[in-house]
């Protein structure tokens, strides 16, 4: 049914339609509306047979989800930013134990400096924890991906993170098609765990594994991800059959045919990118885009096929690997190792800085003219950083960087 609804509430409804039996809740902006929404649906009886557990920290949230999942319950939680870091050890444990937990990340920057706004630093920090990571381009896709995530997780016995841009998606109201319970029930079978803690049939989960077997266990973790490369598109097809719309899959291509420049990005910025591409295509520029939905597993072959006909690739990414550049760009380069085309990194939208059509268009034009540097920070205030570099060089006890940049931005430069 079509509804005008906030992204967070829509995800809460989608999660409830998947009939989780345990939901662990701990608030952190910008994810809070989601678990609050699920809580409201438990309280009013819409979601029955569900234990909604208010826990004392993010570490507890995922630890309780791990215990619940090992006991055979379909388990869900959500977090963001420092919350994801705080549960870091449990994130690895959930994957290492092969427990099919679904977790929403309301993507947000990581401090210091503390920042509540959107970028992808949080989920990127856990990209190699063994979870499947799916990035939603729209709120419709966010809610659809949650329904797919439970099926994917349980079929592979592997946890899945559904990443959606904090505020930009979580707090946006837009038109959404909310599925019926019957449709979701038809798509998502009851949870049939591959391992279960059962007092009548006891065994242990979480053994100490030494050098003689650890590599084999890790090999199988990688193999699980490779199986997901096959399963994600299959589940997307089944989803389309039941719900009638394309959602999920490994990548989405947009006007890549005949494109000399292809833009690659994750998440909601793809909408803005498409609008820029339409304008530039109208001006005769050969440009298209690829949105990566599945970042883990990383679709090396599919990306190579989508990108290798282009002359250059521009990766717009909302995270920074200090000392390297771009995480996504590095991964994209791996898929293009034999193709010999330039891959440019554009770090954009850090800490919630708006990514505008005007700035993107400037970057894409520069790319089209082969004027783009290897790595660029979109809309960087060059004067501010140069001023700070010189100031810090002059004084040993130069004080905190963030406070000095803030002072400059407030108009007190050099004081």
């Amino acid at each position, binding site marked *: 049914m079509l509804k*005008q609804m906030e992204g967070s509430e829509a995800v809460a409804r989608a999660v409830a339609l998947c009939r989780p039996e345990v939901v662990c809740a701990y608030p952190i*902006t910008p994810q809070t509306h989601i678990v609050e929404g699920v809580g409201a649906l438990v309280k009013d009886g819409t979601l029955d047979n569900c234990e909604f557990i208010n826990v004392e920290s993010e570490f507890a949230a995922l630890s309780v989800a791990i215990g619940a999942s090992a006991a055979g319950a379909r388990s869900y939680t959500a977090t963001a930013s420092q919350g994801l870091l705080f549960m870091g050890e449990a994130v690895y444990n959930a994957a290492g134990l092969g427990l099919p937990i679904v977790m929403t990340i309301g993507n947000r920057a990581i401090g210091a400096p503390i920042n509540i706004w959107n970028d992808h630093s949080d989920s990127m920090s856990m990209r190699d924890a063994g979870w499947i990571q799916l990035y939603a381009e729209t709120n419709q896709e966010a809610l659809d991906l949650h329904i797919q995530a439970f099926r994917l997780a349980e079929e592979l016995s592997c946890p899945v993170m559904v990443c959606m841009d904090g505020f930009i998606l979580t707090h946006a*109201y*837009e*038109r959404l098609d909310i599925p019926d319970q019957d449709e979701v029930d038809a798509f998502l079978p009851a949870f049939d765990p591959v391992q279960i803690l059962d007092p009548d049939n006891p065994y242990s989960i979480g053994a100490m594994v030494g050098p003689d077997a650890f590599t084999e266990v890790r090999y199988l973790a990688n193999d699980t991800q490779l199986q997901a490369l096959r399963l994600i598109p299959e589940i997307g097809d089944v989803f389309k059959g039941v719900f009638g719309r394309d959602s999920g899959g490994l990548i989405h291509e947009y006007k890549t045919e005949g494109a000399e420049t292809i833009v690659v990005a994750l998440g909601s910025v793809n*909408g803005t990118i498409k609008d820029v591409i339409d304008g530039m295509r109208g001006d005769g520029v050969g440009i298209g885009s690829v949105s990566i939905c599945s970042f883990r597993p990383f679709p090396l072959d599919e990306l190579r096929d989508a990108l290798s006909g282009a002359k250059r690739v521009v990766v717009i990414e909302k995270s920074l690997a200090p000392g390297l550049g771009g995480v996504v760009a590095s991964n994209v380069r791996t898929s293009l190792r034999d193709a010999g085309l330039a891959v440019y990194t554009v770090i954009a939208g850090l800490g919630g800085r708006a*990514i505008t*059509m005007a700035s993107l268009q400037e970057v894409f034009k520069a790319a089209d003219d082969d004027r783009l540097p290897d790595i660029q920070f979109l809309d960087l205030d060059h004067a501010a950083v140069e001023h700070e570099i010189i100031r810090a060089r002059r004084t040993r006890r130069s004080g905190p960087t963030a406070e000095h940049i803030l002072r400059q931005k407030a108009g007190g430069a050099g004081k």
Partner: protein
Amino acid sequence: MTAAELLSVAAFIEGKHAQAFPNFGSERMGAPVVSFCRLDDKEIRLREPIQEPDALIIQDTTLLHSVNVFQGLKTDGYILINSTRTFDDLDIADFVAGFPPHHVCDVGATELAMKHVKRPVPNAALLGGFAAISGQLHMDSVAEAIMEKFPGVIGEANVAAAREAFHIARAA
């Protein structure tokens, strides 16, 4: 944010695509807040904040001379101000004189809310006023959106405030 949300719901009721989102300012009560709403007949993919609005609803006149609220507003745009004071009193008469007739209007939305709802909640009345000056939405859709968000007596009181604002703005 409630106003932008209700505006998007009213547009949805009329079959339009609508996207409402806040400008996520400081997390404290009383901080200046901006929220946005886009309306279109096709899917809205753009995620940048609105930089050149077609219409501006100003909820608090104390902002008029502390931030440049009119920045980017199109020269044939619409302005609705929550105030019972004249444009001269607000010291914006010269500025608004450049806009087409009937595009700029002030409505005492907070006073209308106090009259009907007994609380200083101007959102509903402002949307009634906006429907009148912009012609983008029907008053009945605004009323339906308000009732969906606030069912029962509170919603009805807000709808009454919105309808009165609609008539005041249309007569202005």
